[in-house]
């Protein structure tokens, strides 16, 4: 092996913002040898993406990189976009996290994959077509010929990521940078894409740089790893060494960030809280311009479940499985057929007006801690809003006292009351959302992917918080998640959904250890293969 193909030395990235300079990357050194796979791992804000965006000359316009980036001996920092284009898309390629938005929605697949060929090799579109076809087949797109004329919105997320990879590989790059390439995908698709990248690397012999927050991926694919925190490399070395003998405290923290433990079972004979029988939600597709077509999607198809007080039922499934729709139907947040009873009282025929007093006891926490808090209200107003509706008799002082109490319970300082949501991190916002639900002293909480938008270390904290609160207040949870590790740590029983139907349900331990159905097995295989706790345990 000769010298490294990519060499980053003392790289600094600074952003000029209205609030002053942000020093995002602080003197990073990093090397990539030919044909090697490295991973740069860290949580959001650690600067891991900014390093590779500097390499590609793609920093935001208020950002500036200093230091040295040498590609095959040539300095890249300071090159004009035009000069950089001798490398970008030719010898250096990059794929991104968001396959939904990273392709041009207005251009056909053929054009987009062909672009690097046309603009770098001067191929004609007709000549490029043959090569595009080869590439589509290489990345495993079925019926490649029919897909040439497709637009991105006609493809699934996994297919779009395959198209991104095909585009990046068009000119057989020496280095492929993959920025969280599977984060936005379902676990089974994730496993497929990683497998594809590994195969392609073996066939084409390129180096791959993975940027990821997911230690499972690192364990799975990389030769060497760089652990980043606060813009600096904390530790680097061979993956095996780092996983088995982490030296830096932060690496240890990351490695133990997997949600641990299981939930204590509810006391036997706990009363039945919420019971649903044969729930069915059908969305009709408005299609055809004159007549109504009868086409309909059964988002939830004949699902029954029951929750006893203090119990947590975990609902897992990939996107489109109907798990969120089921959750909403349970609370009558959208129209559904079937019978839903709360404490023996049938909710099905109640109108929204009669339902309202019950809503106090049935609360929801959503996935998106950014979208679900109004940016124009203070934290105190957000948390206290439910009290204004359901306990209108409370005075302002008493209401504030209850808000403070709720904030204390989620371990936020009461002085945060006067601040606005944008001043908080994702984990803190999710705590605010939990406080908003708790302040009404509910008996049931629907948790719809409450940890999915958060970093692993934060996820673990939220899982522990939710479990503690449940214990303390005898809460009942319906916990919806695509993340099997989190569900394992949270739920008493698990329900696996696919295409609106229940594939399998049972006690958490049984589902994880002795899955009966093929789909459950596939889901577990795809996910657990990537979970580092298991991997690390079996690594020795």
């Amino acid at each position, binding site marked *: 092996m000769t010298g490294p193909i990519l060499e980053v030395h003392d790289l600094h990235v600074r952003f000029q913002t209205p609030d002053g300079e942000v020093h995002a990357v602080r003197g990073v050194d990093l090397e990539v040898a030919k044909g090697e796979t490295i991973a740069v791992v860290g949580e959001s804000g650690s600067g891991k993406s900014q390093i590779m965006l500097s390499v*590609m*000359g*793609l920093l935001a*316009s208020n950002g500036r990189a200093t230091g040295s980036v040498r590609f095959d001996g040539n300095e890249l920092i300071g090159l004009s*976009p*035009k000069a*950089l*284009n*001798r*490398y*970008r*898309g*030719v010898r250096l*390629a*990059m794929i*991104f996290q*968001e396959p939904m*938005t*990273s*392709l*041009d*929605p*207005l*251009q056909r697949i053929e054009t987009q994959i062909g*672009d*690097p060929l046309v*603009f*770098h090799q001067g191929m004609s579109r007709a000549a490029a077509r043959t090569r595009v076809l080869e590439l589509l087949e290489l990345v495993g797109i079925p019926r490649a010929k029919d897909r040439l004329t497709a*637009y991105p*919105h006609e493809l699934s997320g996994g297919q779009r990521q395959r198209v*991104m990879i095909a*585009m*990046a590989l068009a000119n057989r790059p020496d280095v492929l940078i993959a920025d969280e390439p599977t984060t936005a995908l379902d676990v089974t698709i994730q496993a497929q894409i990683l497998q594809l990248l590994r195969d392609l690397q073996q066939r084409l012999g390129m180096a791959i740089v993975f940027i990821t927050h997911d230690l499972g991926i690192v364990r799975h694919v990389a030769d060497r790893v760089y652990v980043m925190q606060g813009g600096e490399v904390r530790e680097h070395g061979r993956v095996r060494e780092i996983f088995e003998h982490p030296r830096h405290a932060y690496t240890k923290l990351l490695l133990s960030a997997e949600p641990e433990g299981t939930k204590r079972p509810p006391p036997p004979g706990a009363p039945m809280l919420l019971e649903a029988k044969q729930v069915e939600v059908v969305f009709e597709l408005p299609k055809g*311009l*004159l007549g109504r077509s009868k086409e309909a999607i059964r988002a939830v198809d004949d699902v029954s479940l029951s929750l006893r007080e203090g119990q947590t039922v975990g609902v897992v499934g990939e996107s489109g499985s109907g798990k969120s729709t089921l959750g909403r139907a349970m609370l009558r947040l959208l129209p559904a057929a079937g019978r839903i009873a709360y404490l023996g009282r049938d909710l099905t025929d109640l109108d929204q007006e009669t339902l309202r007093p019950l809503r106090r006891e049935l609360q929801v926490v959503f996935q998106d801690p950014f979208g679900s808090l109004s940016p124009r209200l203070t934290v105190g107003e957000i948390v206290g809003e439910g009290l204004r509706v359901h306990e209108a008799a409370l005075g302002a002082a008493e209401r504030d006292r209850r808000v403070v109490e709720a904030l204390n319970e989620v371990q936020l300082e009461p002085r945060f009351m006067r601040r606005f949501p944008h001043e908080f991190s994702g984990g803190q916002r999710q705590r605010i959302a939990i406080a908003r639900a708790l302040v009404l002293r509910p008996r049931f909480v629907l948790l719809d992917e409450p940890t999915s938008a958060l970093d692993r270390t934060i996820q673990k904290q939220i899982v522990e918080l939710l479990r503690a609160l449940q214990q303390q207040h005898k809460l009942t949870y319906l916990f919806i998640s695509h993340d099997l590790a989190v569900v394992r740590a949270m739920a008493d029983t698990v329900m696996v959904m696919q295409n609106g139907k229940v594939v399998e349900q049972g006690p958490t331990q049984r589902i994880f250890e002795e899955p009966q159905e093929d789909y459950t097995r596939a889901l577990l295989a795809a996910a657990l293969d990537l979970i580092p706790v298991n991997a690390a345990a079996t690594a020795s």
Partner: protein
Amino acid sequence: MLRYVLRRLLGALPTLLVIVTVAFFLIRVAPGGPFNLERPLPPQIMENLLAYYQLDQPLWRQYFNYIGGLLTGDLGPSYVYRDFTVDQLLRQGLPVSIQLGGTALLLAIGVGTALGTFAALRQNRAGDVGVMTVAMVGITIPNFVMAPVLTLIFAIWLGWLPAGGWGEGALINKLLPVFTLALPQIAVIARLTRGSMIEVLRADHVRTARANGLPPRVVTLRALRGALLPVVSYLGPAAAALLTGSVVIETIFGIPGIGRYFVQGALNRDYTLVMGTVVTIALFIVVFNLLVDLLYAVLDPKVRYD
């Protein structure tokens, strides 16, 4: 696609009927009538006139008569331009207004998008600030100020261009009115283009294009296509407004379009003339909104009408 167009046009009929009905009764609510002159006409003559034009009949019957005429394409006689039917007046004026407005529209689209793109690529730098300042001036200075000022400079002081008149559509006569008419539209389109272009240039897929090392010119053109969508939706109403004549511009430059008929008709209570212009403008708006929606489908593959 054809079915979609037909459906849209059929769907516009109720809208048009409502517009015609509201306009018909509104103008009748206004005090006075077409024959109320400063010196009142003798009662006998007034009666004869009203009878001749069937204005003595109950209002509901006049309404149905008008609708009946409209269905056969008869817009009725003008009450003020006595020797003309409304149809004839529109036939004379509309081509002039369309020529004027159409040229202004094309100019506005071309120059506006170019300036907007130029500004977006130099966001917050001197070029951007310059273009946006000029655009602001274009929007804020009303055309009844801009028109005389330009006339003063180019027609009176420099003597390069005629101060007014249509000159049977000679190019030299069109320059000033077209430019004055286009100026605020150039400004609006430039601002719209800049805004949406800045947004698209930050999009993930533009980053992908740059990561692929596509030439900057190609990246810009690709981005522009996406950025034009909001501009296109603005063009529907704007085109209808421009093509159906500008009252101010046609009056100041003495151009025989239909814009002035609208105002004169309203002031003179020339009921049929007002109705004729209302129907024309409504039709234009319906048609141009349809064209905009069709253009959307051409630009954005996610939009399909079949």
